[in-house]
């Protein structure tokens, strides 16, 4: 399949600061990508550079095989054949839903234009709202109009800038899944920017974690959670703690919870004295009343089906543990636990 979006060694710098540096990734046709990161990490600037609203300082951006951005030249947004969905939707308040969707279709003949508008209204299930104005719609409906408007001219790539951030948090995941279905139905290549990992997991095939202007990892949601490339990704994606340990030999690490097998970075295996940190997810720690290993409960949070306990080990180190919620334990109690995990991610600890 053809490569629809290619971002190669892109940097965006302003006079006094660097926004992003050395970013590379690509998307094939009909794939959905996501840039995930905390606010201010540069992900939105990167998306705006792909759209052509922002100039790049080095590298290049290709869309559908055509070079659109280089440090010397920026093709203006209106000539890129992109679609964009904005955080505030930016629907034109003076136009009806149908006219909003038809806005980018001026080159089509009248009949074709109406047909395309109908098709999209059908797709986003808003045929009844055809002649309504944006302010008459709910937030979710407005968002679907914004999506339909961006999809109408059949863009080479669809860009979505935090499209769910103005929605209620319990609606977001559902909406993200709905949007993914819509995009897949039309075979549209898309890239999304968000700070919410659940949105990213629900919607994207590939996720790039961006932090402080760097692309830390580009992979599937599973990869990011289970094999984070570095401490930043480990910390940003999912919950967990970093447990100190010492390398014993081939993929063996000694920790307070016993000797566990860890995924060492290549070359680090032989260094038997090296101090490391081991990423321990809450689901790696299992509640077991028969275990000799005990930890004191110092906090708990009810999560419906499970409790998330915060436990304190003898050394004072805290870890997290998920326990089914019909097991009730009080703060201050000792809880028996054991580790059930293979090949935990291990990060070298550098002397500070």
């Amino acid at each position: 399949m053809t490569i629809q979006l290619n971002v190669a060694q892109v940097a965006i710098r302003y006079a006094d600061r660097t926004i992003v540096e050395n970013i590379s990734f690509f998307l094939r046709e009909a794939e959905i990508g996501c840039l995930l990161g905390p606010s201010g990490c540069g992900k939105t600037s990167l998306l705006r550079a792909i759209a052509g609203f922002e100039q790049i300082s080095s590298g290049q951006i290709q869309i559908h095989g055509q070079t659109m951005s280089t440090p010397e030249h920026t093709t203006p947004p209106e000539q890129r054949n992109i679609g964009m969905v904005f955080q505030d939707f930016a629907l034109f308040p003076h136009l009806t839903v149908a006219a909003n969707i038809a806005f980018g279709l001026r080159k089509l003949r009248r009949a074709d234009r109406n047909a395309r508008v109908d098709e999209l209204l059908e797709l986003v299930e808003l045929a009844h709202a055809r002649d309504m104005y944006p302010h008459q719609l709910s937030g979710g409906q407005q968002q679907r109009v914004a999506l339909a408007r961006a999809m109408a001219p059949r863009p080479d790539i669809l860009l979505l800038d935090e499209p769910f951030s103005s929605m209620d948090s319990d609606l977001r995941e559902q909406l993200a899944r709905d949007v993914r279905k819509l995009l897949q139905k039309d075979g549209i290549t898309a890239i999304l920017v968000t700070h919410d990992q659940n949105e990213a997991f629900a919607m994207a095939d590939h996720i790039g974690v961006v932090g402080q202007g760097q692309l830390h990892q580009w992979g599937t949601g599973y990869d990011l959670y289970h094999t984070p490339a570095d401490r930043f990704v480990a910390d940003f994606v999912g919950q967990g703690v970093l447990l100190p340990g010492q390398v014993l030999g081939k993929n063996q690490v000694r920790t307070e919870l016993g000797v566990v097998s860890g995924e060492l970075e290549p070359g680090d295996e032989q260094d038997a004295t090296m101090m490391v940190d081991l990423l321990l997810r809450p689901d790696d720690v299992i509640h077991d009343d028969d275990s000799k290993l005990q930890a004191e409960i110092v906090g708990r949070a009810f999560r419906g089906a499970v409790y998330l306990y915060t436990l304190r080990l003898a050394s004072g180190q805290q870890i997290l543990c998920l326990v089914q919620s019909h097991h009730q334990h009080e703060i201050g109690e000792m809880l028996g636990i054991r580790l059930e995990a293979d090949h935990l991610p291990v990060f070298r600890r550098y002397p500070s």
Partner: protein
Amino acid sequence: MEISILTLAMLLALPVIVVLAFVFVPTGDIWHHLASTVLKDYVVNSLWLMLGVAIGTLLLGVSAAWLTSMCQFPGRGVFEWALLLPLAMPAYIIAYTYTGMLDFAGPVQSTLRDWFGWGFGDYWFPEIRSLNGAVLMLTLVLYPYVYLLSRAAFLSQSICVLDVSRTLGNGPWRTFWLVAVPLARPAIIAGLSLALMEALADYGTVQFFGVPTFTTGIFRTWFGMGSSAAAAQLAAGLMIFVFALIFIERYSRRQARYHHTSRRHQDLRRYQLTGLSAFLAFLLCFLILFFGFLLPAGQLLSWTISVADYVIDAQFLSLVMNSLKLAAIAACLALVLALFLAYGYRLFPSRPIRFAVRLAGMGYAIPGAVIAVGVMIPFAWIDNTVDSWARQSFDVSTGLILSGTLVAVTFAYLTRFLAVSLQTVESGLGKITPSMDEAGRSLGFKPVQLLSRVHVPMLRGSLLTALLLVFVDVLKELPATLILRPFNFNTLAVRAFELASDERLAEAAPAALAIVLAGIIPVIIISKTITRSRQIAAEHRDIA
């Protein structure tokens, strides 16, 4: 695009630059003469005028604002907007109306003489044609600036801070002085400096009352002594006052940002006034409205009725047509330029462009007489240069091409009133989020195409407002029109002023009344805008 914005802004700033540049042109004896005779009067009178108007507008404006926003009493809902009506009354019109009512032959003194059997010289009656009279007249029509801004500040204050003060043991009066006024201070001062700018710019009132100030001095020096340089220097002197006020206004507005106490607003629970206090509140608001609008407007109406059959004729209609034509041309041009500048700044938001747009919008603070001088000098220079060149080359005299034509008047209006349309267009554009532009561009439109397809349709309301506001301002404008109009070209404002100066007060009334009626339009716009912004705020509250 950027170059044309900068050029346009420079052109519009030309009158001010010319006036300031003339500070360094030697005028020899004339300046010495001015300095030794009248200059002190100009400065002292202008200062007293400002001080008096400041005290007056503060008293009327702040108390009316507090009563209508924080207290409940009969008639409050009507006073809320009706107290803006005096804005429709140009100062020179109210001045001659009161003169007609209060001078020796007027109805007030005649009635007193009839009652008490007095004759001429038997009694003392305050002279309206004096500095104090001018202060009173200007106060009556300028307090709405203070009223408008301080009311907005009172309404935006979170009721919580006032409640906190009450729970800490302060009564309503102490709360007003200790919390409400200090919080609203930046807004009050901003409104006050606007009122004082208008007071300084006034020509008609002080001329009519024979009070020598900078504006009248500029006219006398120009036409009486024939010295454009000395007139420009007086104008520059006046500008020092104006710049000080601009600075104060800007500074207060900046401070105002820090005076927002809370983002959560609750509906105001007004103090319910009853009995005597309700009556006093009603009386105060009514008296302000009565003397500021109802009485003078009623007088104008009765004069108009008495002279209608011989004053309203073909000549009067041509006055109306002249005024409408001039106002319409200026309003349309100002709108186009404002749209160009504001949209240009949106597309190229750089420092130089920002400065240029600010510069182009500065004229509103500059008195009409100053702008007239600043337009006249360069235009006359161009005319003379072209004329002498044509004489030498072709032996033809081109005469006056620019000065004394409608071009000069229109240019002066643009410099003075562009700010009005610019501000309206800018605030309208500001409400259209940048992502609207970006959405349009990602759908394949160039910025220029978006202006007609997205911005102008969305801005329709603001654009209409901008047109109307400039239109009415031009109708009311007096000093610049007086200096720059073509020979024998009269407008309603000029005619009303001329007739009044000739003591033909009743005959001036129809023209004056027409101006006042037109002036009500912006009052309606302003009060509508306020209501709408309150509705929007209420909707936001419902959502939150």
